[in-house]
């Protein structure tokens, strides 16, 4: 299997890059955090559903971390990840139970609407959420050890890589399971699936919950890396960003969203370092990918197979 050496090589390259340029550690941790959320979006895309509201779960994960630290004094990094994961999963299942009844533009718009409600709540409940200035997230402890902020950043980078690998393996297994296969089938022909006796809503709810879980875990990593959470995390442009990342990287495989996220963060950082017109460079890079790599960046290394989606 040629994918394994490729993936290993990519991870070694990630680590090597941070040795050459220590400031990349932050950029790449953030890219992985967004990659996790984009992977969640990619799961739904596989089922033919596009969510323009997934930044809400990213924000739920991030704010869950901030609240757990501030209000409950929980500082252990693993406990924080677990709490944020559970909360975003529960939120995903609750919201999912409602929105998976809808398809196409209705699904997209409902997600958008709910995420903007969350955005407004986060901005307006000033006393609780810190309003538009956001909340601070301190440096968590690791299994009782108090790390220096710098040491923790490095730890978090490796933890994010581990999370990326685990999430990749889990989602891969999910795609190959009957539930995952049924998800692709929803995209192809939903009615046939019902006739086969497979509950479509159940299939989609599992997918939605899983995608919310991934986005929430991404959010908690982002909160701990940035050290600050803002309502902007739930804003619709950030949701659009996640869809863009997923499509940019390619949704045919697990690696796509991560490749897309790393690409976008790096182009952004480099372009913003060069000129004030960085928006234009990022835009041109996106157009380039869309025109010349319709399968996404992953199309570079992964040959098209029969039955691939998108």
């Amino acid at each position, binding site marked *: 299997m040629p994918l394994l050496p490729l993936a290993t090589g990519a991870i070694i390259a990630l680590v090597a890059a941070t040795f050459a340029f220590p*400031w990349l550690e932050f950029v790449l941790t953030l890219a992985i955090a967004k990659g996790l959320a984009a992977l969640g979006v990619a799961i739904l895309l596989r089922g033919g559903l596009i969510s323009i509201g997934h930044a809400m779960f990213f924000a739920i994960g991030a704010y869950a971390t901030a609240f757990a630290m501030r209000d409950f004094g929980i500082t252990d990094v693993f406990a924080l990840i677990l709490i944020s994961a559970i909360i975003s999963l529960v939120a995903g299942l609750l919201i999912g139970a409602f929105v998976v009844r809808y398809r196409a533009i209705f699904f997209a718009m409902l997600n958008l609407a709910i995420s903007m409600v969350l955005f407004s709540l986060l901005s307006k409940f000033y006393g609780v959420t*810190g309003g*538009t*200035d956001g909340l601070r997230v301190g440096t968590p402890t690791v299994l009782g050890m108090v790390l220096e902020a710098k040491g923790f950043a490095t730890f978090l980078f490796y933890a994010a890589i581990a999370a990326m690998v685990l999430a990749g393996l889990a989602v891969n297994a999910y795609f190959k399971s009957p539930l995952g296969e049924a998800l692709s089938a929803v995209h192809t022909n939903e009615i046939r699936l019902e006739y086969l006796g497979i509950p479509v809503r159940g299939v989609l709810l599992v997918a939605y919950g899983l995608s919310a879980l991934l986005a929430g875990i991404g959010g908690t990593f982002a909160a701990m890396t*940035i050290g600050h959470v*803002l309502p*902007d995390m739930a804003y619709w442009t950030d949701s659009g960003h996640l869809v863009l990342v997923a499509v940019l990287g390619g949704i045919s495989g697990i690696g796509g969203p991560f490749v897309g996220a790393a690409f976008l963060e790096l182009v952004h950082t480099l372009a913003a*370092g060069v000129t*004030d017109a960085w928006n234009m460079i990022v835009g041109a890079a996106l157009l380039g990918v869309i025109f010349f790599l319709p399968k996404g960046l992953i199309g570079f290394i992964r040959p098209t197979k029969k039955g691939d989606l998108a």
Partner: protein
Amino acid sequence: MISYRNILCSAVAAAALLAGPALAEDKPAALGVGVFSFTSGGTAAYGKPGRDAAELMIERINAKGGIGGVPLSATYVDEGQGTEGVIAEYRKLAGDAATEVMIAALSSGNCMALAPVSDQMKVPTVGWNCDTHQLYLKDAHPYFFRPNGNTVPEFVAYAAYLIAVKPDVKRIAIINPDYAFGHDAAKIFTTAIKAFKPDVEVVAELFPKLGAGTYQTEISRLTAARPDVIFSNLWGGDLENFVRQASPRGLFRSSQAVLALGESSMQNVQIPEGVIVGVLGDGWWMSPDAAANPETREFAEAYKAKYGKWPVFPAMKMANSFLYVQAAYDKAMAGNGGKWPSRDEVAAAMKGSEVKTLTGTMQTRADNDGVVDQIIGVTAKADGHDGPVIGDMVRYKGADLMPPAGEDPIAWIGTLSADLPTKLPQPGSYK
């Protein structure tokens, strides 16, 4: 054709640059400064004057031989790319030993996000425009300095001025932008007004979203509410749109307007005479103190010549931040016998520093927040100046309006005595 001499020169210069960091006590070839401001998006209305002022200040400081003989060299970062991007850039710059000090940031959200990062990376950082009073409320930030001061004295000053010129005020209305800055200002202003005059009633409180563009509905609501006073901390394009739409509908005739950030828009839109405006601090380039300082006059003339406008207060804040950095270096070098100071020594020099700026004197408090005077006045015309000016000015001492460090600022405002406005300097006393 490139001559060998040129190549040789560049090679020597490059070698000198490379050798710079190796000899820690020697002066570097350049003093790297990271300057953070908005240069994209609507917020650039403040970010651009800040950035322009930074370029001009660097030019002027370098023309005089730099700081301690070392020229400044800036790396500019656009805050318009979002907080994550701003932190990434900050970390990148901080990781490079050549960047020795940062001037960041314009937005309060960015300052709050950067302050812990500055402590972590131990880089002296100067908050040049952000003013949220939340910044030092919960955590200490030993490497983050804010000579700019905070929202509490800024808006309490307006309440004091208003009570002094309009002691019979009964009904006030508020129209502020819908984000933390707008809500904070509304809270501070109303709390202060009620402390000074408990029977004042807030008849409307409107928070249009940032960049709303049209304010017709809000103007109708304000007209219907019949307030004696309309307070607003709208700014940039928002303020200009509001003034353009409110003027023809007579809003400024029926109510006394208080435009807290009005000075920054006076050159772009015609604000009627008699509107209470100010500069959130002492950064009015035509104030008596500023006019008495030949440096300020020169800076303002150069700014006007280069950019076609007089420097608005965000530009003055940026210029003053450079003086703050310069003062810290001078102090640090005086303290260690003229050797080039480390980042830690610069931060230590900023601690508690008192700095003479282009527009006055600021004092760094123990918690690193700045104590700055507040200048407020009304829009007026003056002979010999083509644009609008500020008349009937008052200059409140920063210390009189600043809540003690560590105290809940809103609770502190509530304890202000009702006769405070009569004890403070009176409008028109600053000339």
